[in-house]
């Protein structure tokens, strides 16, 4: 059942071979590191890029289309469906997806107009074709899956602001130069992010490039999270200490008798 994944991988290799002789994408994100500090309320990531081609490439009639994706770290997320049981609504059926915790895609044109649905799916561009491997006993597999759960997962992710499509957000600055500014919400999960760009022309993908950006907690946030994660019992003692001290101080400061 992991044929689709294999197809995607094969496709990637084909890219590597073709891009050496024809068009290539060159781009640079505005930062390699997004720091979450205590006053973090979201930010943006700007990506600049050009389409380069060697002298031997034949000029194409149509315009180039560019898709830029910011893909977050893989996390397992459970989608649950409620059913009525004895008059109350209870979580029954569920699917666990091993999917990016964040996915934003910006394109030069509406995604569906850039290429055929199957092509977009193989190139992994857009939410409609996003492969969502499921966590099954004994590992992770790409299954045919249940459409209703898949739709619910994507809808809930969009509502959280962690999945988004920005058709037309990639601006052409010149014949070969383009840029895009992707919003990063305050709820962005920490981890290693991929910036993937795919170049399309005449409905066919021509080149792909990948760069990396990390989202990290910084300063006080990072120290607290690390303490809580690594030395959790020390953190627990500190929490208790802070609670009792605050309570005691409150009792002394606002003494009523």
């Amino acid at each position, binding site marked *: 059942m992991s044929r689709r994944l294999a197809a995607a991988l094969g496709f990637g290799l084909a890219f590597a071979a073709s891009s050496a002789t024809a068009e290539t994408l060159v781009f640079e994100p505005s930062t390699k590191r997004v720091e979450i500090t205590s006053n973090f309320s979201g930010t943006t990531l700007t990506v600049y890029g050009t389409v380069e081609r060697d002298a031997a490439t034949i000029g194409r009639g149509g315009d180039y289309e560019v898709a830029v994706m910011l893909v977050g770290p893989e*996390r397992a997320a459970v989608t649950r469906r409620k*059913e009525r049981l004895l008059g*109350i609504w209870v979580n029954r059926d569920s699917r666990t997806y091993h999917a990016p915790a964040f996915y934003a895609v910006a394109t030069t044109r509406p995604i569906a107009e850039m290429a055929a649905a199957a092509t977009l799916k193989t190139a992994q561009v857009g939410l409609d074709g996003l492969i969502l491997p499921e966590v099954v006993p004994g590992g992770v597999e790409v299954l045919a899956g249940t459409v209703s759960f898949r739709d619910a997962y994507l809808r809930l992710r969009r509502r959280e602001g962690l999945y988004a499509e920005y058709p037309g957000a990639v601006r052409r600055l010149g014949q070969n130069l383009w840029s895009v500014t992707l919003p990063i919400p305050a709820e962005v999960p920490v981890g290693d992010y991929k910036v993937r760009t795919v170049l399309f022309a005449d409905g066919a993908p021509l080149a792909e490039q990948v760069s990396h950006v990390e989202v990290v907690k910084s300063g006080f946030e990072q120290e607290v999270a690390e303490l809580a994660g690594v030395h959790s019992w020390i953190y*627990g003692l500190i929490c*208790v200490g802070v609670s*009792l001290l*605050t*309570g005691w101080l409150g009792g002394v400061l606002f003494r009523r008798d």
Partner: protein
Amino acid sequence: MQLYLPIAEWPVNMFMIFGVGGAVGFISGMFGVGGGFLLTPLLVFYGISPAVAVGSVSAQVAASSASGALSYWRRKLIDWKLALFLLVGGMLGSVVGVEVFAVLRKIGQLDLVIGLCYVVFLGFVGGFMTWEAIGTILASRRNEVPAPKKPRTHGIVQTLPFQVRFHRSKLVISAIPVLALGLGIGFLGTLLGIGGGFLIVPAMIYLLKVPANLVVGTSLVQMVVTMAFTTFLQASNNHTVDIVLAFLLMIGGVIGAQFGAQIGQRLKGEQLRALLGLLILAVGIRFAVELVVKPADLYSLSMVIGGAK
């Protein structure tokens, strides 16, 4: 002012959290309850994950009950021996609670169990409290003096084995119901992120027949220790205590409680009980509605364990 919570991994408005803590503190000061049963649902409503809300509120409850216990200690209104028995039970209950909490979260039934417990306990206690208080108010309107209830001298607490003498409360009762009460409150408190004051106070009065003037102070001591212990377990086992969130709630709560206490002193006992009963009942009904009414979205999303969410 936006503030990013390091464990909840969620940005919040600092003044909003401070205000929520203050408002709940006001109510807790007014009625002399912890207010966890209001705070946890409010935080969840605000977008904090239920697990982090429950964990962080236990730290807040430890702080607010420490304040309260201190004031009763000064007035020497605490039965330490009884508190010790209760908190031994409470800590055991807390250990079980943390385990059950983790299992329920994993199988996706935590929200359901929390909801059901809220409906059952809040509904029952709130209903009883309102009914009793309104009865008293109506009786006093008719200038009737309610006949003092005869204290039962031979209940089940006198007949069970392991009789223990509690000098301060002038009681000789079996240790079993005392430990069981502590255990039950510790378990529920851990699971629901509440101190359980609204459960333990009536139980001590009606089941154990502890003198009314010692009930609150003694239950506060048991709550401080049990909730401090719970905070430690939630932080070290489940990684669900956000110290920044808890601290903001504590500060708001301590200040709010001062104003609440001043208003509370101007009201009569039965008026306070009727208001508190209605409040508890309202929260219980809200949870019941949520369980019964068809949700707007049948699907929900949650992260698989690993850190805060």
